[in-house]
């Protein structure tokens, strides 16, 4: 709900994208994409460049035409509506503030187009600026603000018109790391307060996982998995998702009787009906821990530490097992005893794992995020 100072509220709407396709010549940008956004939820589209996430957003905004399919917002088919009649607020990656207008004028611009009176415009603009915490900068010009401040103004401007849907096209990509994290949380906070249905596009998985209600991982014009962040992370539907989101170890294993044996550790499978045979198991670093000293010394997961990367509360330890490398995520106190060259015995926690039978490019080994 979009709340104004006097407490008037608008209800959030559902957004349905059905069968959207887009070709650029021979290149397929979107391939019959279906996506439903529940009222008030924030869906993040995540994927490598060229996967179609930005195209999806721009189709929804009306900045590009779809070849097939339909777009329905709040029950109303808007597929044929031009961009300026779609009632959506959009925040671009950068440079979208009008340089010849002050912050206040920028934010009020949409209202001016709707012939709102000057007094009401001003009031609403200031409300929005307070919402993003920039009312003190109201009379500055965009080039006098930092990148993070500019994006906040862009957000205020998009929300000022009380749109039904909020669209964010990689709004944090052009900002410094520290600002990015702060702004990300602020955007989520505002989105929840206002209660507006939101589509957020990013290539940064940390962002997507941190703020979304559901994450849609995209590849080559299709959605590979659409699920809440925890599920995408711990129960990836395909190996692409497993490898794109978070770090993954690829280890050889053998499936028999509904379980897979990896390096002497028996692990349950995430999927049913996996045929017996050799596979590549996708194991998260957090599932790899130090073996307690009471277990067998001859566990095949013994190796030499190559590097210890300090990450704060946890540390990532890269271990050479002889025929392959594996990454383990340990608490820093556990990792404190290790350094390059020390021998360590590892074990894998029995979490359900995804296995891949296809021989994908790259030898079995630790997979890095894209």
């Amino acid at each position, binding site marked *: 709900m979009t709340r104004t100072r006097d407490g008037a509220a608008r209800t959030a709407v559902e957004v349905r994208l059905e069968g959207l396709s887009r070709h650029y010549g021979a290149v397929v940008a979107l391939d019959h994409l279906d996506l439903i956004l529940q009222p008030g939820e924030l869906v993040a589209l995540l994927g490598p460049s060229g996967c179609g996430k930005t195209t999806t957003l721009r189709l929804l905004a009306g900045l590009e035409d779809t070849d097939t399919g339909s777009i329905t917002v709040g029950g109303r088919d808007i597929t044929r509506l031009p961009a300026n009649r*779609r009632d*959506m*607020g959009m925040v671009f990656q950068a440079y979208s503030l009008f*340089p*010849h207008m002050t912050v206040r004028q920028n934010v009020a611009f949409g209202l001016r187009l709707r012939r709102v009176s000057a007094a009401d415009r001003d009031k609403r603009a200031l409300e929005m600026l307070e919402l993003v915490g920039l009312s003190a900068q109201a009379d500055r010009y965009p080039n006098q603000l930092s990148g993070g401040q500019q994006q906040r103004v862009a957000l205020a401007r998009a929300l000022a018109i009380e749109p039904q849907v909020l669209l964010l096209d990689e709004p944090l990509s052009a900002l410094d790391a520290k600002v990015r994290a702060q702004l990300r949380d602020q955007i989520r906070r505002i989105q929840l307060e206002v209660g507006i249905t939101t589509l957020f596009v990013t290539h940064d998985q940390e962002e997507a996982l941190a703020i979304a209600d559901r994450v849609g991982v995209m590849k080559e014009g299709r959605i590979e998995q659409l699920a809440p962040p925890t599920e995408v992370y711990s129960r990836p539907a395909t190996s692409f998702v497993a490898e794109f989101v978070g770090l993954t170890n690829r280890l050889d294993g053998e499936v028999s009787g509904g379980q897979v044996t990896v390096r002497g550790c028996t692990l349950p499978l995430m999927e049913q009906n996996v045929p017996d045979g050799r596979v590549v198991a996708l194991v998260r670093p957090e599932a790899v821990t130090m073996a307690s000293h009471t277990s067998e010394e001859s566990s095949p997961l013994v190796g030499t530490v190559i590097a210890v990367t300090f990450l704060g509360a946890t540390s990532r330890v890269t271990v050479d097992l002889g025929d392959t490398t594996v990454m383990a995520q340990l608490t820093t106190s556990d990792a404190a005893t290790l350094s390059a060259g020390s021998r360590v015995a590892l074990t894998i926690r029995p979490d359900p794992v995804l296995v891949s039978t296809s021989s994908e490019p790259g030898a079995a080994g630790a997979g890095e995020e894209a």
Partner: protein
Amino acid sequence: MRAGRRLSIPNWIGTVPFFGYVAVFLLWPTGIVVYDAFKNPAGNFTLSGLTALGNSQVRGYFIGSFKLSLISAVIGAAFGAILAYAIAAGNPDGMIRRLYLSVSGVLAQFGGVTLAFAFLVLIGPVGLLFHAGWYFNFPWGITLIYAYFQIPLMVLVFLPAIDGLRVQWREASESLGSSTWQYWRYVGGPLLMPAFLGALLLLFANALSAYATIQAWEDQVPYTVPQQIYNSMSSEVGLANINYADVLALGMVVLVAIVMTGYALLGRRAARWLR
């Protein structure tokens, strides 16, 4: 890197050739003109030369120059802007853009005898296309000829500004609900205005300084200040006339300087927004 004696020669010494050259061949002659404008035949400082500027005949020349420059600048700016927009809207690496830019680069400098004669042959008394009765009219006949280099100049100067309009502004404006007309009225237009006005001023100064073309078009009757300067210098009747030419020249310099200052200021504003 050579270590060793630290030379105490300041860095700006390297720029002396350039600045020295400019001083001798630009600043000094201009200085002479300004100085001589205030000199009477006896060589003393005087303001009497300036009274020539009040002379109605002289005023007529300045008005003529002004009229021609203004009209050709406005026409050049308007049409040039349209052409520039058409070029900018297309493929940035495309044939058309390269073609029109090269053509503009050449034609912006084109002028003088050949240009005037080309039009004479085209629409003059024995014109190949047709005979334009107004060909020898001032200012319209000569304005058409001036347009031939003013429009390309406008394209050269104004195209970067149009390129500087970011696509995000258009898209943001649209997603906020503007129609095409509203976009141009509130966003595109105001952003382009300083660059447009600046270019207009540049075209004005360009026309003001032009001499060869109008001399080739019609060398019997002086309409503009440059033509009159020529007349007064080529028919020297004592030193008094040199002073007259100097005064006219001074008037021109002042006029053009004012215009170019305006151009510079507007250019700065445009650059800030449209970088």
